[in-house]
């Protein structure tokens, strides 16, 4: 029995962390804000194999497990890396499971090689889109990772569809979102040709959402653990009343609360990722439970860490705001905790249709 990361997974994590700790210090991140992921970073991400983690080998991927994917997502969150990974993971999982041979050929090699960058529609805005199976029309109010995107992964009429960004009839209005490591926009489609994944089967939508949500949970976990580590370090560095503030019981207990929340979440994330490969019927439920719990815990940790840093935490000088806003945004993306728990209840048959 082994519950946890393998040696290869730990190595993968170390590789990613080494790269980003060299490339992305606070000033570098601030310089990148509101811009597409820089080519050198994207190229390195591709070279480390991060875009093709769960792509099958015949499409140039490394065909690893969902747990490997979580290692990647967690590391990206830890460095608030402006890498458009969530959409890539969603499309990969959906196309692998539900795409036809042409679709696999069309997308998977491009995802692995990095020639495709995927923007994805948020939870809100899908209702405004309609799709007849060949063309999509409507105005989606939130689309994520739009800067530099080559393709849009959207949902309309319970179908999962891909729109090539070079098609005509697409209009993009940039939005001013709080997490500047990601770009948001309103995207309007005027009868634009689209490629429906899995012939309109709703389970293509479900698997894409489940993978997206679990990846956002892992991203949140990475960011929250970093904020917790920052708070711990700061508590020993900062002196007031001739004592490190970490010697005050109030601070010690806040730190204990943070780590007591984090560690079971780590176990839940690992297990949830494991169900994708080992117990697929349980995957969507576990993705929902992980996303809702980890983003709740993330919210508490982000708040407490900021508070422990005092006034400095409220400035842009320390850079804590970048993590705070990433966590805050992850919490809402693809559904806030309440709507995701409602989905978890629905999956388990807890919702009485007559009553609701």
């Amino acid at each position, binding site marked *: 029995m082994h519950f946890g990361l393998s040696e290869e997974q730990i190595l993968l994590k170390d590789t990613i962390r080494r790269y980003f700790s060299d490339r992305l210090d606070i000033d570098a991140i601030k310089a990148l804000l509101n811009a597409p992921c820089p080519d050198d970073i994207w190229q390195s991400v591709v070279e480390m194999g991060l875009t093709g983690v769960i792509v099958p080998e015949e499409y140039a991927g490394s065909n690893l497990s969902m747990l490997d994917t979580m290692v990647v997502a967690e590391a990206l969150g830890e460095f608030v890396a402006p890498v458009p990974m969530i959409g890539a993971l969603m499309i990969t999982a959906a196309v692998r499971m539900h795409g036809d041979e042409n679709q696999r050929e069309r997308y998977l090699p491009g995802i692995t090689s990095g020639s495709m960058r995927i923007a994805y529609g948020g939870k809100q805005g899908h209702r405004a889109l309609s799709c007849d199976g060949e063309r999509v029309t409507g105005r989606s109010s939130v689309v994520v990772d739009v800067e530099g995107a080559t393709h849009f992964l959207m949902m309309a009429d319970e179908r999962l569809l891909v729109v090539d960004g070079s098609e005509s009839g697409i209009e993009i209005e940039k939005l001013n979102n709080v997490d500047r490591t990601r770009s948001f926009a309103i995207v309007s489609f005027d009868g634009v040709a689209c490629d429906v994944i899995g012939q309109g089967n709703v389970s293509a939508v479900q698997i894409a959402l489940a993978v997206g949500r679990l990846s956002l949970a892992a991203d949140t976990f990475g960011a929250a653990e970093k904020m917790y580590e920052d708070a711990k370090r700061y*508590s020993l560095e900062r002196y007031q009343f001739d004592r490190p503030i970490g010697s005050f019981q109030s601070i010690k207990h806040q730190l204990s609360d943070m*780590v007591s929340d984090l560690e*079971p979440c780590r176990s839940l994330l690992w297990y949830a990722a494991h169900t994708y490969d080992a117990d697929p019927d349980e995957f969507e439920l576990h993705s929902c439970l992980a996303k809702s719990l980890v983003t709740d815990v993330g919210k508490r940790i982000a708040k407490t860490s900021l508070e422990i840093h005092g006034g400095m935490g409220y400035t842009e000088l320390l850079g804590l705001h970048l993590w705070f806003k990433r966590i805050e945004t992850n919490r809402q993306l693809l559904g806030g905790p309440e709507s995701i728990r*409602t989905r978890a209840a629905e999956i388990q048959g807890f919702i009485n249709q007559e009553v*609701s």
Partner: protein
Amino acid sequence: MDLSYGAEYDDFRNEVRQFCRNNQFVDPSNGMPGVTERPSTERQAWQAKLIEQGYAARTIPKEYGGFGAEPDIIKNRIIQEEFISAGLSPGMANQGISMLVPTLLEVGTEEQKKNYIEPTIKGQMIWCQGYSEPRAGSDLASLRTSAVVDGDDFVINGQKIWTSSAHVADMCFILVRTEPEAPKHRGISYLLMPMDAEGIDVRPLVTITGDATFNEVFLDDVRIPVSNIVGTRGQGWQVANVTLKYERGMLGNSGQGASAIKNLEDLLLTEDEAGHRPMDDAVLRDRFVELQARSLANKYHGMRLLSKTINREPPGVEDLIVKYSATELAHDIFCLGVDALEERGTLMDDSPHRAEKDWQKSFLSSFVGIIGGGSANIQKNIISERALGMPREPLVELTKDGWSLKKP
């Protein structure tokens, strides 16, 4: 990730399963044998059978009445799983078995091991723990109950509190101050005291649940032989910490959490007279799913710790948080059960009104987990100081000028 126990354990699981199929015993008593009442002769006979099979006292050496197997945490887990799924009473767990016996095995004399381990694991000798005192709770090392040597005896005077099972116990493992001049942690000794000795007065302490599960124990010139010491004089604090290590494991066992969340799910899906299910209420449903996520997180966390133990990875912060995390979760689960039942949630267990599980009493009892065995606040000190490397708070004293820092 590999969550199987491995094919080599299949035979063992089959053997246990076979035993569970061929043998039936469910203790009819509602109490906990060896905690709130003495084990019945039937329960003792069952225990003897379990030891003989190696399903209780599995790793206790044969010469002390145990089964004498090599420690194998997976086999323990398999036994636990099979007994739960068959609904059979498992091997007994009480303070004597779970705390004293491992301590004696680690630091007891040969004579102590010979005298005490066998009757204890067989459920014939019941123990209570004489640690806490009215003025020594979280700061246990400040305890004042004294023992003075007089001839061949220790003479014990003082008072203990929160002594569960003192009213049924034969023996008490007790912490006393034997070296009043020494620094507080080095002046304590760990003694074994027969509860029928002259001068012991046990008074039941009725708790918030209305039950008398704890006691106050008054000690007035109680004489016990000087040979009834575990370790040496002044070494009692280290000996006690061996015992406390086992208690934290006992209180934080997350196996209990899994059945609590399942019971809560059943409760929320049960219709009342008007055909209404609590689960139909969006807010209660939301609270339930949140608890379900926490509960599963704790369950998988338990698997992670099991895997760490099997693979001999050193303990870390993930081990220290378990008691705090699991006991808070249990409290929240019972609280939602009470809320879902609304007015009927305030009824106690003997009400004619209800067939549901006893939610109010479980809710009240959940404080045993939160406070007992090192309260939540103490757990948070332990986590932050031992695992996160945070400093202790400075000591203060009250002087005529008010509070001031105490010189070390």
